């Protein structure tokens, strides 16, 4: 059927449209969660995580052209259930932004949620600092009713909508903008 055949062509047409060569880089860049843990301290669950930000050449170029890159750190807590799907107990997120300050010739890392700003001379140190999440207060301990049956899931999500408008549609299709991590799950209590 002609209509059906036309349907299959659309993604190809759209990518043709965007005139972007869909180059596939050999996956040297990504965002990986090296480790993550929720510690209990002072009646709070606090998040400690180490994230490895490996930027693609295009992202690096963008950054150097003073474009801000934003990541959302998303933490979800689930309670296991036998007969239904697992109940989501907590949905917590944190936003980090990195940008190059041309005048000061420094890289600025800002925790958008708290307002904290740090500056670094090199991109590498800035990314490293951004990847060190320490003592982030997530939730009070007494709010988690069933810690033995609960587990946490963490994902570092690159915010495409924070990019300048012209880059947004492209970023959904270009592999160089695949800068999000996968979900990492671990049980709350060992």
């Amino acid at each position: 059927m002609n209509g059906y055949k036309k349907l299959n062509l659309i993604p190809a047409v759209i990518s043709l449209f965007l005139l972007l060569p869909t180059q596939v880089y050999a996956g040297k860049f990504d965002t990986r969660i090296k480790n993550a843990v929720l510690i209990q301290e002072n009646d709070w669950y606090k998040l400690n995580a180490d994230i490895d930000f490996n930027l693609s050449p295009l992202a690096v170029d963008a950054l150097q052209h003073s474009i801000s890159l934003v990541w959302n750190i998303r933490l979800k807590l689930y309670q296991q259930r036998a007969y239904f799907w697992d109940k989501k107990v907590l949905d917590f997120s944190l936003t980090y932004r990195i940008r190059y300050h041309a005048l000061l010739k420094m890289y600025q890392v800002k925790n958008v949620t708290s307002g904290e700003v740090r500056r670094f001379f090199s991109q590498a140190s800035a990314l490293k600092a951004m990847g060190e999440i320490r003592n982030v207060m997530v939730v009070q301990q007494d709010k988690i009713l069933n810690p033995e049956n609960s587990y946490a899931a963490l994902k570092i999500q690159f915010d495409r909508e924070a990019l300048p408008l012209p880059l947004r549609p492209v970023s959904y299709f270009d592999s160089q903008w695949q800068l999000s991590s996968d979900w990492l799950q671990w049980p709350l209590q060992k």
Partner: protein
Amino acid sequence: MALTKIKLPISVLALILFSLILLSLQLMSSATQESSRLSQMYSWLLLVNGVGFVALLILVGINIYSLTRQLKKREAGSRLTTRMVSLFVLLSLAPATIVFYFSMQFLHKSIDSWFNVEIDRAMEDALELSQTSLDERKRWQLRKSQQMAEKLRDKSEISIILDLEHYRSELGASEMTLLSRRGRVKAFGSINPSEILPSLPIEPIRLKMREGYVGIDSIRDDELVIQTVVAIKSEQKQYLQILYPVPVRIADLADSVEFAFVRFQETTFLRDSLKITFSLVLSLVLLLSLLAAIWVAFLIIRNIVAPIKELVKGTQIVAEGNYEHQLPVMSQDDLGFLVKSFNEMMTRIAGSRDEARFASLEVENQRTYLETLLSSLTSGVISFDADFKIRTANQAANVILHTRLHRFYGKTLLDLAQQHSDLSGFVDAIKALLEQSEDVWQQSVAFSGPSGRQELLCRGTVLYSPEGKRIGGVVVIDDMTDLIQAQKNAAWGEVARRLAHEIKNPLTPIQLSAERLQLKLADHLDEKNAAILERSTRTIVNQVDAMKKMVSEFSEYAKPAQNQGENIDLAKLVKEVLALYTLQSTVKFKVIHEESLPLVRVDPVNMRQVLHNLVKNALEAVAANGEITIKLVTINERNTKFVQLTIHDNGPGIAAEYIEKVFDPYVTTKTKGTGLGLAIVKKIVEEQGGAIWVDRKTTLGAGFIVRLPAL
């Protein structure tokens, strides 16, 4: 397809569709302005427009597919629809493509024009100027800090701490911090009394720099400060961190330069993406409008073509012969008028057809009437076409010529003669006349048919077309055989009567005279002469007797019929007659007759004579132990019932040259006899309304067939 059954008028639907597309595209276009609130929703708007594009594509695709299928099935109106749609698509595509192409050109050129090499350099230079200015300031502030550190070298820690605030205000710094060798805060002074901690962290590495550290940073994202870290080279090895504010004016300038530079850098990076984004929007605009237009065109064209489709279907129905079908008039425009005219035309055609049907029925009736007439004529009628091939022949012609002429339709007379050699004489006689005569002609033809010699009177005429061209001919054949035979018989009868009368008269005087001579002279003569006289007179008297008898027979023959008709069972009569012969003859007689033979109305006396004559003939033909068979059957011919009597003997048969003449008077093979026997038989039979002929089919001996009308 549901598309043809829309309840909304097409104009309203089209209006709604285009308004929606316009709105959607406008929103997306507005979203491309970074300042607009819609920019957050840009991706969603893009998706919505993309989905709309796909939906329209599917709709148009379905329409194209269904049209292609209709085209393959050669449905009415499909070719017209295809042409109109193709035309429309081409017409709309051409200007749209041109506009699109030039718009893209302008777009790309405009975007390119933003990126001037000079602007690029100017921006970089401006930034560098700002940076240089700030660097200058930084160095100056660092020197001031170093001087302060030098000044404090000899002071004790306590005194430094006590005078920190004073030193700070002396320098004009916003903050001053005394740090231990390990970097712990020992004292702190700020221009802002509520501050108790340094605003900027002190990186350990900065402590290690030999000449001191200087850098620019911003506190709380808006205030620019110059941070200096210098070592106080006293015994305790302390450090001083001094923050100098950057004057607001300079800070603002630097900020604005940086802002502009950042924007410019961003835009430079996004150059290609910008082109793509705007091209995408433009393309979506083009495609959505085009597809919407094409889809609406499909609807409109289908609507326009609908009456034409009906018209085509109508003509197909008419072509199949249904003239009563009327098409619905769907609109009041030219097409509606066309449909109305079509319906009127159909009504008229139906009327003409009915008239033609009626006329042809009439013609058919006439033809049937003529055919019946012709078939019941006793004269044979044969018609020929322009090439002298037989066209038609009536039943009488078949009977007269003893053949089925319909087998020779389309063939010439020569073909007829080839198949029936007995008709060759007939064909020869009339062929030349038929082909060469220009007008009416007449010819007597004799030929030997299966029932004997036939005398035919042929009359022919030429058929001409209204333009005077010869288109064929007609030959009328009358079987004159019987008529001629009757004439012959009448002639013979007349002769016989006269002769009888003339001869009879002198016979009596001769006889009387002879008897007188005998009477008178017998006594006067001697024995010898008396004997001579007696012999001679006896001879005269005998011969006169014989002549009298002959004359009598002749008179009999010539006498008009005296018939006392009675209803007779012929079989009974035959048996009675045969009874006389069976006793006195050794010949075997066989009589075969049907059980319920119909009666015949004949004069029994005459009939007996017929039977006697026939039997006598047969007896004289066969040998002593011969066989004579008489058969009696009922025959049904031409709706008339006949009783047929056949008499066969196993004698030598009749010689071929006599067969024709056997019923003629004075024809005989016998040494004795008048030869009138069969002639009388024939006369009597015919007077009774019957017929007699020689059975030519018999292979052994002679056979005669007598047919009499049954009751």
